[in-house]
């Protein structure tokens, strides 16, 4: 523990708790958003490539669940909290956007 931190132990503990809560939320909600986006993007792209919708949906869900697992673990391992949120929420939104865009081209 550094000297500055030991000067303000309660502030430090409080900050750590907030950080931890942020990581937990990022793991669950951010992970879910990312997985959703991945399912949307990959299902629509596989469908566009000629695969049946239900086949595409199944493969995309498999990828989504595994991506959720990796995102969940990474949310606790990563150095920077803001990066976790940026990649999971931002990436999820971007991927979901790709899904809707591909759909708009086909329907």
């Amino acid at each position: 523990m550094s000297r500055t931190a030991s000067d303000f132990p309660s502030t430090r503990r409080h900050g750590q708790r907030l950080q931890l809560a942020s990581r937990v939320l990022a793991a669950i909600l951010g992970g879910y958003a990312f997985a959703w986006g991945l399912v949307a993007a990959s299902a629509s792209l596989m469908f566009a490539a000629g695969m049946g919708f239900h086949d595409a949906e199944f493969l995309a869900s498999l990828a989504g669940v595994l991506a959720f697992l990796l995102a969940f673990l990474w949310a606790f391992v990563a150095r920077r909290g803001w990066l976790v949120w940026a990649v999971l929420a931002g990436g999820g939104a971007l991927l979901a956007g790709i899904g809707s865009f591909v759909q708009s081209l086909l329907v």
Partner: protein
Amino acid sequence: MFPSVRQAMAWLHTWFGLVLGFVLMAAFFFGALSVFDREIDRWAIPATRIQAQPMPSYERVLRPAFERMQPTRQAIDAMRPRVDGPMPERYDTVGSWSAYTTHRDPVLQLFAGYVVPNARHAGELVWAEATIDPRDGRLLPDDRLKVGSGFFFPMHYGLTLDWKHLGIWIVGLSALVMLAALASGVVMHRRIFREFFTFRPGRARLRSVLDLHNLTGVVALPFHFFFALTGLLIFAAVYYFPLGHTQLHGLHDLNAQVEASETGLPHERAGRPGGLANVDAMVADAQRRWADDGKAGDVGFLVLQHVGDANGYVSVYRAGTDRIALVGDGIHYKAATGELIREDPAATPVARMAEFLTGLHLQHFRHWLLRWLYVLGGLAGAVCIATGFVFFVEKRKRQHAKDGRQGARVVDALAVAAVTGMVLAALGILVANRLLPEDLPGRADWERWAFWGTWIAALLHAAWRSAPVARALPNPAWREQAIAIGVLALAAVLLNWITTGDHLLRTLATGYWPVAGVDLSLLAVAAIAGASALRLARRHAAHAAGPAYAADAEARHA
């Protein structure tokens, strides 16, 4: 955030494992019971203790039974908000009739969907269900609780919390955490492996608990990983990632149109009346076609679509008894003439993979040894989580006792409720099932209350007896509930004998394995619970004799 990957993994493993471990305990334990859900149903509903039956004749048995069906008052009321205008009293326009059975079902499930005039979503049907004796079409009481398939099984995947599918979401998150716990457990394990060679005589129990935790986690790791993953996949498209109904609705509908035009199976009614040719002849034809393909088998699912309409058709699906993949090999006939419309084409590679993965989880195949291995796998998961709880408490209770903190005490009480309490609750519903009068109104609700009541009682008992944990001593509730498990398990076997006359000598002599198997399992539970209670009593006596003796006794036991 965390100084190292290993510490991040340890934090996640400990705390997510603790919080969602209680849910996982239920998922594993009731999953293990669900492997034999049909057999538990037979035990709980003595009127259905007959041998499994194949799909009966439509003309002789099914049609009269279908014609008697009508939606219940509750089903009509539930549908009312989604209809413009009044709901009719009687429903005569049949959207679909279907019958479902498996190789372990002596009773047949019937489903009937009726067209509702002015339904907001065109095509939404109001449903009726019935259970019949397939030998003569006799209606069996449908208000009896199917304790196995109608209670333990929904507990396994959704905790019976139906509101907004909350239970399914909680179990889903827990399945994800199970995957994360396995991954993080492996990362932690490297360090733990080194610690195996550390000599810790005073902490023998801590070590043996951890050994069991690692053993049940690692030996069955592929099983745990696979079941958590496929469990998520089975519900993914419907609940967890329902893109086909939401974001990618457009693609889903586009695909449905293409499929409908390819299959030639009419999606809508024609609005003109149509006849119905001999359905038994269609079934016989379907079985001939499967046999020609080298896939002879019984019918698992029979569907009549748009009954009485010119667009009506009949679909015949195989029961998946002879292979892991959950395949239907549907064959479809025009209802009015009985002519073949279509045979389902061979599955795509992706569909075959999906059928295999979901089939391996849902196990419709006939393989009793594999079925028992599933039970063992599920129980290994339950033991893994239970020892996780015990390890959490054992590791902290001395420190907490010194600091005057209550954490270990609270977790220990919850662990008692989650481990022995859950077994007690399952036994409570079985005992109530045999004790309650046969014609009690709302009998199924009383049985459910017996389950939750027993569980709450176990939790209160565990909390009430938990004070010693705050002094780093064991909670006597473990031992007392083990005794209660032994008593209730024996009582269930005896009550089954008294109320039905089906004692073990009879069920074994006649080879009626569904009931004999449940009774034998209950006796095994009683024996294990009794042995555990004895062992805990000895340990308790050792603690009472003094800490030095206790440590010595523990070292010998470990």
